């Protein structure tokens, strides 16, 4: 993510968070919530996932040591709970992403922004998904269609775009909380915004605000970390 005029890059945010010592668990939880609530696939949190895996491994060893050395099992179970919680977050985070890939495999593959958001393993997974799905559709439907109607992406050769590819619905509505003051946005549409009791020309959030938002205009606010989804 390029930083421009006061916007933070992903690395800068990472450093900042580490500096104010938000724990990795909190960061992982936020990443999970964002990924779960967002209609599109978000940038892969490579560094965070790596750190989480390392900490999980360390803790697994610690728990094993405790068990072997006859530590009070009730206390060991507390460490186990902490471990279970982090593992759940990590697995859920990765799982949600895989499920989005399964849903939108063709679109993700052909859209550079999305393709670049995948981890290496996810990219390989996407490739395999497409290959498997392509093969399956080819066998059951496409090979039996007349010429000019055999594309998996287009209804027929005269389609101007790939009109058979499911894509993420970016005009869906999400609930977001503000972490850092957002840029003022002029929202086109009939009414720009509404609080429960006020109307503004442009829409802006300050830290602490909770809002229902149409996702599309706020994509960048999310990837920059100004807002997070709940």
């Amino acid at each position: 993510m390029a930083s421009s005029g006061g916007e933070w890059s992903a690395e800068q945010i990472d450093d900042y968070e580490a500096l104010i010592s938000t724990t990795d668990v909190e960061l992982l939880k936020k990443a999970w919530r964002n990924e779960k609530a967002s209609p599109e696939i978000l940038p892969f949190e490579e560094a965070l996932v790596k750190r989480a895996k390392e900490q999980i491994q360390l803790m697994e060893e610690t728990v094993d040591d405790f068990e072997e050395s006859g530590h009070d099992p009730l206390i060991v179970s507390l460490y186990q709970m902490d471990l279970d919680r982090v593992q759940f977050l990590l697995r859920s985070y990765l799982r949600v992403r895989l499920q989005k890939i399964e849903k939108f495999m063709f679109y993700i593959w052909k859209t550079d922004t999305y393709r670049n958001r995948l981890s290496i393993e996810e990219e390989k997974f996407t490739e395999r998904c497409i290959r498997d799905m392509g093969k399956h559709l080819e066998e059951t439907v496409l090979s039996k269609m007349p010429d000019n109607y055999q594309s998996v992406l287009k209804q027929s050769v005269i389609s101007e775009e790939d009109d058979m590819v499911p894509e993420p619905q970016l005009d869906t509505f999400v609930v977001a909380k503000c972490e850092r003051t957002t840029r003022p946005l002029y929202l086109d549409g009939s009414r720009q915004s509404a609080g429960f009791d006020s109307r503004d020309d442009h829409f802006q959030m300050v830290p602490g605000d909770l809002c229902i938002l149409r996702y599309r205009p706020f994509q960048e606010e999310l990837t920059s970390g100004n807002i997070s989804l709940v």
Partner: protein
Amino acid sequence: MAGQSDPHISLFSAEEVEFMAEDELIEIVPNLRMDPLNFICGDFGPFLPQIATQVPFWLAVALKKRGKCAIRPPQWMSVENLTQVLERERESQGAFQVLPFHYVEISRLLFDHARDDIPDMYMVRSLIEDIRDVRIHKVETSLEKFSGTSAVKIPNLSAMEVNIIRPFVGRALQAFYKHDNPEKIPDVDRPSSAQTRVANNEPRRPLRR
């Protein structure tokens, strides 16, 4: 949907909401001495008898169950405060009173696992139920305000109310903004008599005629 985390990717199950609530901090009073706990999610303790300290809810409940502490109910959970909140909640039509984001989950956790640590528990529980009802009603009647907008501020809404709103807002407002996409692979609306329809972030692909 009960118990399952991922039927619709974008929705949070009740268990997942509770899971997030369990990270909120609460004060406990240990009744014995314990070594500090150095978790992945943070360091807690040392634990000294009668010296209050803050830990996440999941740990507080676990320690309580293991007989190692009492839990101090949060300040907002007093009969006095809740009575006031309920009154103000009833009086104001459009606004919501300030309560912790996870007030529903937190109170439920305390009722289930630390009943004896809550003074006037039945009164507290009854007040919270009333507050919840008033707020839900308020949320439902405010839903019309959302139509035709791209953004709405919802100050002081709690996790539970957000979860209630989510499907309705998604549906109603999505329809408003549905642009004419070229025909996608039709995903026929699956009628389900028993289950309520929930919002999802899948493309709506209506079948032509």
